[in-house]
């Protein structure tokens, strides 16, 4: 199985690590995280505000049929071009609360790079809420699919 993206979530800790190697030069990987035009494309959200500087802030918003379905925001603590972003991240109205993120960008070769994200949650319980989300979503999607198949059988 291809495991380009790895998650390290040790038991008993309130942090987790996400690592990924990209077939992209370092500057392009960094652009994907700092320029609204690209953030919007790969994250599938609208960028309301994104200040690439120390003590800057950002805001994301996603709408579906005219209704806002997702809102996130945070403060950028440190912004080092092609090196590092330290920021807070909060998905509004979600149980995982505010998280602290350390994003480290590394050059591997001229066309490959690596991203390491360390996320620190308020508590182990908040981290569990985060991990539960796609899990629950996966189950509900599987359930919908099952429902669809059953309906087609009728």
């Amino acid at each position: 199985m291809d495991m380009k993206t790895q998650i390290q979530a040790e038991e008993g800790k309130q942090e987790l690590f996400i690592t990924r190697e990209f077939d992209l030069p370092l500057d392009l990987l960094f652009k994907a995280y700092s320029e609204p035009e690209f953030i919007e494309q790969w994250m599938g959200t609208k960028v309301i505000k994104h200040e690439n500087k120390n003590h800057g802030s950002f805001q994301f918003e996603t709408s579906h049929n005219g209704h806002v379905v997702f809102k996130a925001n945070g403060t950028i603590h440190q912004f080092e071009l092609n090196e590092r972003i330290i920021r807070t991240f909060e998905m509004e109205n979600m149980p995982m609360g505010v998280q602290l993120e350390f994003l480290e960008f590394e050059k591997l070769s001229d066309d490959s790079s690596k991203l390491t994200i360390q996320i620190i949650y308020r508590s182990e319980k908040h981290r569990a809420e985060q991990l539960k989300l796609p899990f629950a979503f996966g189950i509900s999607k599987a359930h919908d699919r099952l429902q669809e198949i059953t309906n087609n059988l009728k």
Partner: protein
Amino acid sequence: MNLRRDVFQAISDPTRRAILLLLTAQSMTAGAIASNFDTARPTVSKHLQILTECELLKQEQQGREIYYHFNPLKMKEIADFIEPFRKMWDDKFNKLETVMRKYKNK
């Protein structure tokens, strides 16, 4: 009221994690497990009950003694639980790669 136990609640406690670690090496009786901790015996019993209820431990009667075994299948469930989260990020990052490669080749 019988609260529904989940594995994550079970492993959120340091004593319970220590019990699990102890039992990965060998099966033990409640008394033998308790002798490894400074905590009162009833507290250890409570932890064993919680771990058994969520199936991280299994009990086996051997003569007059009850032995506790570690259940690795349940631990695998925890690893499987993280997989959808990993998959979500993997999909997002694949998208990022596609978007940026397209831009690069323009």
